[in-house]
């Protein structure tokens, strides 16, 4: 009995070993790593998309592998590169590209673009200009924008009307937003039963919101041309953080403490927060779940209208075999084509990076029915790249840890930003040592 089982096991193992040997004849098998960073049912939509690709491309067999959050996806991609079996393509958070390129983990896509008989400018020209900053490094293309977002102001229109505000004229400036938030906060004695506004602050989201507020205050978060500098200890960021701090402790219209994204959207959906700043990626979730009329609007400005982009690009890890590279390139081009780009946008709430997507009849029809989806696209005119530095995550965390202390009333904005700058400079030191401070 034992022997026969062993025999069976042996046969099964031999069979398992033989399969890949035979597979040389069949379609090229490639893996696509994809994260699910926002609310909604992205995983199922991805299954639908890849199934369609495989049906229309018999020579390629793509498998979609769910890899968790953006951060998890980076980890898993790096682990598989180290193990010598990189996935053929990955939907990678757009601000990780620079860090990966510095670590030599990305395939330069220039030659694949040239092999198609197009120029780099023609290829990039398909996408909104705001997205190019995170896809191009040192004038070479390393990523193809797949789904992108900008932060939006979501307003509970019913509550706004209740408070005597006109939801069709959303707040345009920080002053107006502060005023709205005050009017939308409800108190019973000292107790707040409804918050005027909620802004998420958990690792990842917090840095993005700080970039949003800093940009609309006229500032820059980082040096867009060079990965070794961030501008934390600056007047524009000080103004941004001070305003956020004031919303919590001076005006008392924003709940104290750090609140993660899902908690913010739940709070908005349940009516506990009357306004929130959140990614366009959550738009479909809000549309499906809100039991009240809502409005979306541009992020209000203090100095100028400006927001960072978010979202992800399709990348190819370094060290792929030629046939997989070719198959992956086919998949990437298919996924970022106007039709598929538009379909994905309608399914998820992200905007479609391919400008031609908005010319397709389905998209025109969709925007007529859901004018709120237009806002994100219109805001793209003032959008700029997402911060990306050497060691993006730790550098971002250097700021986030300090912002969390401020939101919890443990530090004042000025000293917090000075501490964040000092920590970030330390994190960036090795990179500067080999670039900006490496002198002849």
């Amino acid at each position, binding site marked *: 009995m034992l022997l026969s089982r062993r025999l069976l096991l042996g046969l099964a193992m031999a069979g398992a070993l033989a399969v890949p040997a035979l597979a040389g004849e069949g379609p090229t098998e490639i893996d696509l790593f994809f994260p699910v960073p926002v609310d909604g049912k992205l995983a199922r939509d991805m299954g639908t998309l890849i199934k369609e690709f495989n049906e229309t491309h018999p020579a390629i067999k793509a498998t979609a592998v769910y890899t968790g959050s953006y951060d998890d996806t980076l*980890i898993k991609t790096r682990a598989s590169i180290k193990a010598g079996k990189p996935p053929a393509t990955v939907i990678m958070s757009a601000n990780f590209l620079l860090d990966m390129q510095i670590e030599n983990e990305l395939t330069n896509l220039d030659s694949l673009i040239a092999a198609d008989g197009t120029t780099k400018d023609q290829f990039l020209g398909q996408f909104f200009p705001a997205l190019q900053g995170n896809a191009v490094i040192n004038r070479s293309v390393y990523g193809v924008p797949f789904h992108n977002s900008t932060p939006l102001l979501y307003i509970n229109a019913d509550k706004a009307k209740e408070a005597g505000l006109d939801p069709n004229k959303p707040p345009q400036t920080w002053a107006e937003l502060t005023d709205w938030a005050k009017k939308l906060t409800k108190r019973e004695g000292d107790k707040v039963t409804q918050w005027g506004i909620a802004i998420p602050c958990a690792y990842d989201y917090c840095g993005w919101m700080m970039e949003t507020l800093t940009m609309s205050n006229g500032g820059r978060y980082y040096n867009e041309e060079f990965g070794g500098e961030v501008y934390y200890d600056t007047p524009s960021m000080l103004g941004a953080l001070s305003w956020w701090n004031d919303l919590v402790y001076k005006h008392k219209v924003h709940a104290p403490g750090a*609140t993660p994204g899902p908690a913010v959207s739940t709070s908005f959906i349940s009516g506990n927060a009357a306004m929130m700043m959140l990614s366009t990626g959550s738009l479909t979730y809000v549309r499906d779940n809100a039991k009240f009329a809502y409005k979306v609007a541009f992020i209000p400005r203090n100095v100028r209208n400006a927001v960072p982009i978010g979202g992800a690009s399709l990348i190819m890890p370094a060290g792929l075999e030629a046939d997989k590279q070719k198959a992956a390139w086919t998949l990437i081009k298919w996924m970022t084509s106007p039709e598929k780009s538009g379909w994905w946008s309608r399914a998820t709430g992200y905007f479609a990076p391919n400008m031609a997507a908005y010319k397709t009849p389905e998209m025109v029809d969709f925007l007529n029915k859901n004018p709120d989806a237009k806002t994100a696209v219109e805001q793209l005119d003032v959008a700029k790249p997402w911060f990306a530095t050497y060691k993006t*995550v730790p550098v971002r965390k250097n700021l986030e840890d300090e912002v969390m202390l401020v939101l*919890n009333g443990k530090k004042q904005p000025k000293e917090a930003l000075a501490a964040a700058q000092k920590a970030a400079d330390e994190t960036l030191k090795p990179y500067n040592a*080999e670039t900006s401070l490496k002198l002849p």
Partner: protein
Amino acid sequence: MRSISRRDEMSLAEPAALPVATSAAPRLHVLKRFTSSFKASLPAYLLLLPSLVFLALFTYGAMGRVLIDALYQRATPKAPVRFVGLDNISAVLADPAFTGAVVNNLIYAVGTVVPSIALALLFALALSRTHAVNSALRAALFLPVLIPMVAASALFLFIFLPNVGLLDYYIGRLLPVLPNWLGDPDIALYAIMVITVWKNAGYYMLFFLAGLQAVPEDVMEAAHLDGAGPFMRLRYIILPELKPTFLFVTVIAILNAVTQVDHVFVMTQGGPSNSTNLVLFYIYQQAVEHYDVGKASAATLLTLAALMGLTALSFRTMANREGGP
């Protein structure tokens, strides 16, 4: 008696070897003696071989790799890795995030081990007699153990949701300002500790229930006849009898406090402001976020050394007392 029991322990894996080893002439050549004993125990080693291979590949191999990785570091991103000796270890020890994580972990260990063991003992004492009601209650208390930590954390994420979560929904009627359970650095670590206690108390209860079965019935009866009240019986009979169980459970609980960080991953990612950063999560951050394998390996070595020291100490204490669980 003790030496024989030691011998028994050692020869568990190779029972066939015992008579050979003891009957061989003491003056034989060392090598010869070794080969003969090896020959005799060869079947045992062969049977152990598959496990040894996997143990070597996946446990000791990985540990060896960590040991090597901990000695190397690159100075700048593009520079090749070079041997730096103990630099990584001193860098980890000098990192305030690491010392912060150690302090957090100590608070976390004390704050989870003590209450969960106290609760477990209380449950076990209350439910030691087996009948239908107690069985049902035991099952109810054991239930959290069956829920995977990740699922439990996701569940508690909703319970702890500020303003709209289950907890705030009820507590909100009592408190003027609602705490942001996971978003306030003063509270977050304790919120995480509550989950650990909730999850582990039922598991430790099982050990105490088993330990209580071993309390000799006749001693209890004698004490009863001598007029010892319930507290006296607990203080002078039950607790001393449970000593080995206490030791064992304490070791398991401390190991859990260092090795179980699933809820940190799911709920707080070490935040806000590193207030729930535990040692294992710090290692993860160094390896993954900072992409610093050298420092991550050094921190792993330090943790391993601490855990091994702890385990060795407790096993020695256990061996010095008679028996164990």
